[in-house]
């Protein structure tokens, strides 16, 4: 593992040189006051990779798993026997995202486990993760996206990454991790393809590495809101499902999709064909378990027919079902849903209750 140093006043030059070879996205503040990843050319210099409030408003998930993705097109205008099915080409060229927070990178690593990922640089390479092999759309975009992380020195009050197998300086899923040392960034290369991002940087000194280590420890110490989760694993699915907390949540949950849309690990989707006359396209759109439509059958029956079942699903999925299958939580502790929820449902309180709440007393019992 090699580390380099990039002075902050050389950041703009570094990015513009990088942009000669790759499409570079950096966090920038928009006119609406929100931080998001934008192409480096459209960001106002000098670049500042650190969003106010700690992170971009939306996670970089959509670079790999777009809100709406065309899977293929079809056309029957040539008449009988002329039906054409055409694959949708994956966008050519590679992109690099600078300033990705460790939690968001970890989230993509979690999703790699679900969508599946091919070994780097080989379209027919070995698949890791993915229940049905690699999802080609995910895998292709994932392959074309280099993630350059920026460690969190000042976690937010809503952050709980450390509880979720992640942390402010966590490296999983990243190709390189940058650490803000004040006047400069410490650039730590984590993968082969991350290496090309440091080709013209000077190596870092031990003092810099030490400084980064102490920042890491300091950041970790700022995360204080610990809550135990150990009992969830021991409780049965049915027991968890029957906890009173779900009814309490359902009383105020709006069943909107805000939490799922801002979530870096939510990945439910819906595939639809859009047809105009004799032609059309097949699409994959984000969907949300909060929506009744998500699970409604063609018959009209809905296995998750009420709000309670839907709000429960999101938490059970992240904190019970995924851990059972994959051995880690389906949440990375970024805290976005806490901020986004219109009725202020706090995932930390929900998890605490899943862990601790006593089962519902059967009716009639004392």
């Amino acid at each position: 593992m090699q580390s380099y140093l990039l002075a902050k006043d050389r950041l703009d030059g570094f990015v513009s040189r990088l942009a000669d070879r790759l499409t570079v996205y950096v966090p920038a503040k928009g006119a609406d006051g929100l931080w998001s990843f934008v192409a480096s050319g459209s960001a106002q210099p000098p670049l500042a990779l650190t969003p106010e409030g700690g992170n971009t408003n939306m996670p970089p998930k959509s670079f790999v798993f777009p809100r709406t993705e065309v899977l293929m097109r079809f056309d029957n205008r040539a008449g009988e026997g002329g039906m054409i099915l055409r694959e949708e080409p994956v966008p050519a060229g590679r992109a690099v995202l600078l300033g990705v927070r460790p939690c968001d990178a970890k989230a993509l690593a979690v999703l790699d486990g679900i969508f599946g990922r091919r070994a780097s640089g080989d379209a027919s390479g070995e698949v890791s993760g993915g229940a049905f092999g690699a999802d080609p759309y995910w895998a292709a975009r994932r392959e074309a996206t280099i993630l350059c992380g920026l460690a969190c020195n000042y976690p937010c009050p809503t952050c709980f990454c450390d509880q979720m197998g992640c942390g402010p300086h966590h490296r999983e899923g990243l190709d390189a991790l940058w650490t803000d040392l004040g006047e400069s960034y410490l650039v730590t290369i984590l993968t082969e393809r991350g290496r090309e991002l440091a080709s013209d940087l000077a190596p870092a000194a031990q003092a810099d590495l030490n400084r980064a280590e102490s920042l890491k420890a300091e950041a970790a110490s700022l995360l204080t809101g610990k809550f135990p989760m150990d009992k969830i694993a021991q409780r049965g699915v049915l027991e968890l499902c029957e906890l009173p907390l779900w009814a309490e949540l359902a009383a105020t949950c709006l069943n909107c999709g805000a939490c799922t849309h801002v979530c870096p690990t939510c990945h439910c989707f819906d595939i639809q064909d859009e047809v105009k006359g004799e032609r059309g396209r097949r699409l994959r759109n984000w969907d949300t378990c909060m929506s009744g439509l998500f699970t409604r059958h063609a018959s009209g029956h809905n296995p998750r027919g009420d709000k309670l079942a839907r709000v429960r699903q999101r938490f059970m999925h992240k904190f019970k079902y995924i851990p059972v299958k994959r051995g880690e939580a389906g949440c990375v502790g970024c805290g976005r849903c806490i901020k986004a929820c219109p009725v202020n449902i706090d995932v930390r309180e929900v998890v605490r209750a899943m862990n601790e709440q006593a089962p519902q007393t059967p009716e009639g019992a004392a």
Partner: protein
Amino acid sequence: MQTRIVNIRAAAKAALEEGLCRVVAGYAPGAIAMRARPVFIDKPEDAGKLTWSSFCVGNLAGLLTQAAKQASGRIGVVAQGCVSRNLVGLIGEGRLAREDLYVIGVPCLGMAERRKIEARYPGRAIIAVEESEEVFVVRGKRREERMLRRDALRDNCYTCVQRNPVIYDALVAEPVPDTGGGDIDKVAAPWEKHPPGERLAAFQAAYANCTRCHACRDVCPLCYCSTCFVDESTPQWAGKTGDFADVATYHLLRALHCAGRCTDCGACESACPQNIKVRRLTSKLEKDVRALYGCQAGMALGESPPLTVFRPDDPQDFIK
């Protein structure tokens, strides 16, 4: 503000004790700064859970229909001006019955826009915000700042025309001046100022970040359709994508569906995780309905919504 909290708790406690209602919908403190969360209490001793702040930016009227179905008997609700107007609207639409409601009315000082406060102190984590009638005290780590209420008000609260509840069974503070001080006509329908050729671009830019989470719809007390038009599948005429054509269809028709019913409560904007100024569409309709038909939603019980009636001499200059 403290008076309001104390009186809300007292009113809720009394109402539950005296059986004036079976449950009270109000707000409890949020888990983090600048948030409040809706809560239902059904025991007098829980009245202490209730609070009131300038961050009660949802709209409890929307949650009531569901609650009213579940709770037999009267249901109490803490309501400021706009929410009370929505209650009136929902009564008119047969969703609620006046006699099934116990309205704890709150003369409103206007709700705060947390993003305005955050923008004032960029890069610093806000741990708590305390407030008086005039001033917000913003606390961070090892610091404390002051901000005038009028600088932190939500846009809709600045131009509010009905801060006192229009219906109530108990009032928790002296009535306040009804208007928020701003002139709605100066700020409503902002794209009218653009030349026609630039409006679509402005519309596109404003909604560019919409991911169609539908929080604006789901927080809206008017959006109670069992199946929203965007969720219709037979036929599915409005697409499900994030393409602007679909985003635009969703927002345009939703705004139209709220026309003449919207009280400009601002919950849609407050709920949007992408900070989209949804009122740029709804304020246009509110303005037109007011200017053309002289109607403002929910101001009095028994009024017909303006799109369910007509006058023979309604303006029709555009019709050939």
